């Protein structure tokens, strides 16, 4: 009997895992003992970290797109379609009408995060973001015209993708506006939901003095409740109202509805064992990347490391051996502190981050990492 592994979601985690399995299970795939299917709802793989650079005119959204045909090993069956139902009892995935369902022996959910701006009245009309391709290009067009007034960056959703990206955006905007001679006419305000400027206390402690030095205003305990696009104001649940001329937000995030419908977790995040990445509510189901509720940042590096763990575990299970590989919370992240300097953090469940002093070398390392990503996705790095 052929064992069938199905990966839903061909983002960072799903693509790295598919190529990892193509390599790891080569003998079983060649012999026809195992089949691996990668399902994604878009014929292109999308690398989101590119979007941070789009508003500043340094990258185009297309720089973050590659066809799966170029990225995924030929030993993997590719299916470009949207999964519409997950039945973990029957071990079956459904697609829209008329498309045959697929049965799995092992399921891996790597469906990532979605933006849910409609949770906040007025946000879709009043706010810009760089968390989607169209958001990033709209913001670029607006930012190019923006030479004076109040620029507000509000972090609304948490968890959200790449916890460092809001800090990076204000640091880059500050530097970019200075270089272009407009900084004196622009007030930058950064808002965050809790009493610090970042969820992780060590990163918050590092970032706060830099914000003070760079004259970036901070509003903590600010949880946006509504945006008034006509009056150009954003109001928090805590009762603070801020005026803006340009509002950039990190919109609320959620996972896909199917996960909650399948009883695998709330808000689209799969409840998992944070070391084995096995789903808690169903057999033979793993989750990785943003959709796995491990409490670590929603980051591509996390999805990449978790893919390695799930790859090893699946290979052990398929070979009838006990699965021993576990995820230790490893997270790696470059943090841009301007247009030509960056810091770097590395941490895990046990060891907290300690941000490196910003340098030009780290900035170039981040850009190099983004370029070499295409080798990472192929499973080569």
């Amino acid at each position, binding site marked *: 009997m052929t064992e069938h592994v199905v990966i839903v979601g061909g983002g960072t985690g799903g693509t790295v895992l598919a190529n990892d399995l193509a390599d790891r299970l080569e003998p079983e795939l060649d012999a026809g003992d195992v089949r691996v299917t990668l399902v994604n709802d878009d014929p292109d793989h999308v690398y989101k970290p590119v979007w941070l650079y789009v508003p500043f005119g340094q990258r185009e959204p297309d720089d973050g797109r590659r066809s799966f045909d170029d990225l995924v090993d030929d030993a993997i069956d590719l299916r470009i379609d949207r999964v519409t139902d997950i039945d973990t009892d029957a071990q079956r995935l459904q697609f829209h009408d008329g498309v045959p369902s697929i049965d799995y022996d092992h399921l891996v959910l790597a469906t990532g995060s979605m933006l849910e701006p409609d*949770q906040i009245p007025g946000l879709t009309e009043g706010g810009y973001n760089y968390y989607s391709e169209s958001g990033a290009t709209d913001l670029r067009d607006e930012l190019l015209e923006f030479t004076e007034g109040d620029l507000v960056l509000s972090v609304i959703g*948490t*968890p959200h993708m790449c916890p460092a990206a809001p800090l990076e955006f204000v640091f880059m905007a500050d530097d970019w506006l200075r270089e272009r001679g407009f900084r004196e006419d622009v007030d930058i305000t950064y808002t965050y*939901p*809790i*009493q*610090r400027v970042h*969820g992780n*206390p060590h990163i918050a402690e590092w970032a706060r003095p830099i914000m003070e030095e760079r004259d970036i205003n901070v509003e903590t*305990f600010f*949880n946006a*409740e509504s945006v008034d696009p006509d009056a150009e104001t954003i109001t928090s*649940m*805590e*009762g603070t109202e801020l005026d803006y001329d340009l509002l950039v937000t990190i919109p609320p995030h959620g996972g896909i509805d199917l996960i909650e419908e399948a009883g695998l977790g709330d808000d689209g995040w799969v409840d998992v064992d*944070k070391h084995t990445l096995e789903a808690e509510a169903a057999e033979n189901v793993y989750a990785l990347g943003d959709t796995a509720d491990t*409490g*670590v940042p929603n980051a591509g590096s996390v999805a990449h490391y978790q893919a390695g763990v799930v790859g090893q575990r699946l290979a052990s299970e398929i070979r009838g051996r006990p699965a021993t590989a576990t995820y230790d919370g490893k997270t790696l992240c470059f943090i841009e502190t301007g247009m030509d300097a960056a810091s770097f953090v590395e941490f895990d469940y046990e060891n907290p981050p300690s941000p490196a002093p910003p340098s030009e070398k780290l900035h170039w390392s981040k850009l190099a990492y983004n370029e070499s990503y295409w080798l990472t996705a192929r499973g080569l790095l």
Partner: protein
Amino acid sequence: MSMTDIEPDETVDARGAACPGPLMDLIGKIRSAESGDVIRLLSDNDQSLTDVPEWAEEAGNELLVVEEFDDHNAFYVEKA
């Protein structure tokens, strides 16, 4: 503080979540709750003992009671 017989409208179980997970989970539930609803947050993160009261005060919501158990605390917050 003491045991309570308050019946929460909703419970958020954030046990096992690293900080700021529990406070953010609470804020998320309060966001969608009606005025007067009581949300019970279960957290085993010590930071919640300072985070939750500070935020409740800032946001004008009332922290009704904190129940202390061996391995976690239960915070009852009423939405203003």
